[in-house]
């Protein structure tokens, strides 16, 4: 895994320059300036936007403020999706900075989950990690950890501490020497071209004849429309083993693969 450290760091420290603007119909006591922020791709909107909230609440009256929510070009942004995923799905072909609109009214109940506190984000994150480990290790590794290890994983994410996070996460990336990899690869494939929220299926890292599966194998198996003959599969597919992607993308919680043929 030491060779992959650069990749792990690049994934962890990925940032998206973002401009937050208050929705025009919000009631303010004076003009609200836009707020600029570099968002971490691996984190969650409601975890990293306290300063955004404070900035806009300064020009609003308390009675006009309820739960904050974010929207891009009319689409409410699901805070429980990683920031990088939201950007890649919705805005990757637009010019930077990513322009997000901030709302404090009319929470879209049908589209978004509520996020009343940081505890809710932590619970969601830990559930994702547990689900991933259920696939990778039948939950053995995550269950053997102490509560304080779980806490360290969360604090590492919350405080943007790569070493703190990976001190625990590396255990979730290991597998017994006699095995060739995880039991199943935890993955989710998101596409803009479909109604389905995402594709998630059982997929082994190694074929029955001992060959390491590649990203291309995965896509062909679970998302064949993504590898239609006229769409060239990126070169990386032909040699990058799926377990490596699972390890490097977004740590141990379900890595999300999103299409970017550019």
């Amino acid at each position: 895994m030491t060779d992959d450290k650069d990749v792990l760091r690049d994934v962890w420290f990925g940032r998206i320059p973002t401009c937050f603007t208050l929705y025009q119909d919000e009631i303010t006591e004076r003009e609200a300036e836009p707020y600029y922020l570099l968002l971490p791709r691996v984190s969650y909107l409601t975890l990293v936007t306290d300063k955004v909230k404070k900035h806009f609440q300064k020009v609003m009256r308390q009675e006009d403020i309820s739960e904050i929510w974010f929207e891009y070009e009319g689409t409410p942004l699901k805070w429980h999706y990683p920031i990088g995923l939201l950007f890649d799905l919705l805005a990757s072909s637009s010019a930077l900075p990513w322009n997000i609109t901030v709302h404090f009214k009319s929470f879209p109940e049908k589209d978004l989950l509520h996020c009343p506190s940081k505890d809710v984000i932590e619970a969601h994150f830990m559930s994702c990690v547990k689900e991933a480990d259920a696939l990778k290790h039948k939950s053995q590794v995550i269950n053997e950890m102490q509560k304080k290890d779980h806490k360290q994983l969360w604090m590492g994410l919350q405080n943007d501490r790569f070493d703190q996070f990976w001190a625990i996460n590396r255990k979730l990336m290991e597998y017994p020497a006699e095995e060739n990899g995880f039991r199943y690869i935890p993955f989710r494939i998101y596409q803009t071209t479909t109604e389905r929220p995402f594709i998630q299926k059982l997929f082994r890292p190694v074929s029955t004849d001992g060959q390491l599966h590649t990203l291309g194998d995965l896509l062909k198996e679970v998302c064949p429309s993504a590898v239609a003959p006229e769409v060239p599969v990126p070169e990386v597919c032909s040699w990058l083993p799926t377990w490596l992607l699972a390890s490097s993308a977004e740590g141990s919680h379900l890595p999300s693969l999103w299409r970017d043929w550019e």
Partner: protein
Amino acid sequence: MAEEQESTLLLPPSTAPEAEVPAEVSPETATPEPPSSAAVSPGTEEPVGDTKKKIDILLKAVGDTPIMKTKKWAVERTRTIQGLIDFIKKFLKLVASEQLFIYVNQSFAPSPDQEVGTLYECFGSDGKLVLHYCKSQAWG
């Protein structure tokens, strides 16, 4: 959802998934590999028709949470966890403000917007998805 469930009560296992789950070799698949290769769950991308088919869910109560008289339900794949929570709360006559948590594998609580069909694909066994429900947080 309540109406649906009452009319599809107690589907015995023999009439359920075996017939509905597509054969391992799906004609749509692009790869010529034999069925025993990558995916353990059969088939590639589900054809649209499959999203209408129901999966069997077995509900188990945790702790002193009331036990559902009917435990086995046939549920549409696209039903969300939140939909299931609302249904159980209604069935158990819980107050709206009371919380209900659902767990998979007695280890994680899926997101409320997660579809039961996906959970069944990844965590189902013996033709059903076992879910534990609890009024308090059982497994964190």
